[in-house]
């Protein structure tokens, strides 16, 4: 039982007390978590982005465009000055525009893979089920055709929801299994690494 493990174990127990109710022990752990996470991301930003950019890109390689973009990013802090907060909208617009552009450029690739993976021969029951389920699920996400209100449209909706729920059920079970293994890992830490009562 070393000091590091004791701190980790006590904080684990503090966090777990939320199962009972919100209490000062949870609050202490929560604030420590948020504070440390903020400090960690700040140090990470300085060490991984700001310092290398200034030292390597700007000072050594003379890449002043990087410096210009850093300053452009820093303009976001104007939002804390009420009279000049409008200036902060420019880098924000840039980031949102970049986000939309990035999504458009790299978004289709995984979908194309999904489309081509659906080109399967209709030579087995499994393949026919796979294809039918894929097709009715796509049809479920048609939002505007008028025939959706017909009895056929409603039947397709019903079956699409059913098959999706089956899929979600399988996913749910799978993810819960993963969570249980995380809990077991934590219990192992508490009982074996910290208390030493388990081999």
């Amino acid at each position: 039982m070393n000091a590091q493990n004791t701190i980790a174990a006590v904080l684990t127990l503090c966090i777990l007390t939320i199962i009972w109710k919100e209490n000062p022990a949870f609050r202490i752990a929560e604030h420590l978590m948020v504070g440390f996470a903020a400090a960690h991301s700040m140090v990470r930003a300085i060490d991984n982005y700001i310092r290398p950019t200034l030292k390597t890109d700007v000072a050594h390689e003379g890449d002043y465009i990087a410096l210009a973009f850093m300053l452009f990013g820093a303009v976001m802090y104007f939002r804390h000055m009420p009279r000049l907060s409008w200036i902060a909208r420019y880098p924000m617009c840039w980031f949102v525009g970049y986000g939309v552009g990035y999504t458009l450029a790299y978004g289709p690739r995984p979908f194309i893979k999904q489309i081509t993976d659906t080109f399967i021969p209709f030579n087995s029951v499994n393949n026919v089920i796979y294809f039918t389920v894929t097709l009715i699920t796509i049809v479920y996400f048609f939002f505007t055709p008028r025939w959706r209100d017909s009895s056929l449209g409603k039947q397709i909706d019903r079956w699409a929801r059913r098959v999706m729920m089956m899929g979600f059920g399988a996913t749910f079970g799978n993810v819960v299994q993963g969570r249980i293994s995380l809990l077991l890992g934590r219990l192992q830490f508490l009982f074996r690494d910290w208390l030493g009562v388990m081999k």
Partner: protein
Amino acid sequence: MLFAAPATPMPVLGIFYPGETAGFFLIFMLGLLIYVFSRRAGTGKRVPSIRKIPGLESIDEAIGRATEMGKAVHYSIGIGGVTHADTIASWPILEYVARTCAKYDTKLVQTNRNYLVYGVCDEIIKQAYVAVGKPESYNPNDVRWYSDSQWGYSTAVLGYMNRDKPSTNFMFGSFAAETLLLAEAGAVLGCMQIAGTTNILQIPFFVATCDYTLLGEELYAASAYISKDPVLVGTVVAQDIMKMLIAAVTLVGGIFATFKADKWLKNLFAK
């Protein structure tokens, strides 16, 4: 030479990198369809309506509940950055929620993990309060950036929800492993919860814990559905046509695959 990195492939016509060309044409086609249908709607031609999405119909009811109970509305946009489509799709919903909360003087607490998303959300909420003529009701402390860490953010939201006990919990955006932590907290506290994400690993948790869940792409149709703006609805019609084309292509691909003649079609999409 065994460990040499593969050479960068040459772009087709100097622009299209192998593997991206088909995607470019799909996006180009979608863009064209959106342009055509938006213009059609803009010139006053009839645009079909979007089918009922119960989760979005209930947003007003959820805010009304918070107003009657005199409690806050919590809105989480998830943990995605500005490049995530779910985050972008969540903004129009946030704007609608903020406007409605401002109209009824209901406290809205919005929490963020990403600092860039936080900046945009803050602007959206501020503008919503200005738009309904109540700029003085906007409280910058109610738009919060908690932590850059996924679990730091989740712990902070968990703490906030247990202390302030909001009556309504909206979760629209990109969510990952923290989904159940946030949604379960809301369910235990008796919040009315409406959520939406496209992450199929997390939708089951929303389905299990929320009153209404937007399944996958319903989130992307939300802005058009809420605003009922014909131009935006036109974009949904264009997306539907694209989906119909894709459904047709999968059917054709399946038929070709049955006769072992699908290679050329696969190659076409791999370009």
